[in-house]
């Protein structure tokens, strides 16, 4: 399933000006420890987290993640938005908790 479809089906908000909608979503990974995502995230995953600072962008780029979703209505730091736009990383937002969004994403990908 493409990122565009996931964004639509889960009602995610774009926090950056561009969404790499054609990216193929291979799954998801939920966590707030950067090295954990480095170790256990997979290319094409959506990363669900509450970290909002700019260092999340390097993680997404190095791991070739499809995008990052900030949960619990968290706002990204100013530098995060600016840098994400510059470096073409898709950052999305939701009012839902990490638990709920992870569950919905899992269900969507298992049974589209």
């Amino acid at each position: 399933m493409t990122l565009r479809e996931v964004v639509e089906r889960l009602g995610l908000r774009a926090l950056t000006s561009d969404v790499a909608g054609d990216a193929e979503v291979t799954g998801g990974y939920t966590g707030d420890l950067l090295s954990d995502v480095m170790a256990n995230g997979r290319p094409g995953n959506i990363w669900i987290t509450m970290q909002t600072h700019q260092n999340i962008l390097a993680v997404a780029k190095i791991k070739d993640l499809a995008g990052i979703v900030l949960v619990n209505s968290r706002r990204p730091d100013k530098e995060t938005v600016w840098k994400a736009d510059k470096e073409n990383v898709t950052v999305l937002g939701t009012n839902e908790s990490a638990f709920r969004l992870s569950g919905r994403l899992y269900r969507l990908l298992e049974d589209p």
Partner: protein
Amino acid sequence: MVSRHNLSHAFEIKGGDFGKAGCVSLEIKEILRDLGIDPAIVRRAAIAAYEAEMNVVMYAESGKVVLRLNPKVIRITLEDQGPGIHDIEMAMQEGYTTATDQMREMGFGAGMGLPNIKKNADRFELKSKVGKGTSYNIIIHLNPEGGT
């Protein structure tokens, strides 16, 4: 195609500079990707470089990274000026960290950095002089079947 490459690039890292943290690893990733190296190998090199880079940002004053490529291997060496590591065996254990509370709040300090390097490298050597600095030697084979 890859067999024709021989290159060497040097980069500087400043300790404590969280704004630029990750830049060197991303540059390394771009260089390797543009050479047409297998994306999975590029990713392993970038992950190892990132964890080494972050350790300089978090624990040292400054560091120098050199990326070298020959037809068989990617070699990433890093030397920093910093406090050094007094017990390398302990530092290598998953979960061991001396990160500050502030770093942990940002999601650093999982104590998985050195284990991540070990997992992604074909060879990883870590040397340190307490009070002087730490050096990392990371080797990744370009051809999985080939030797060093």
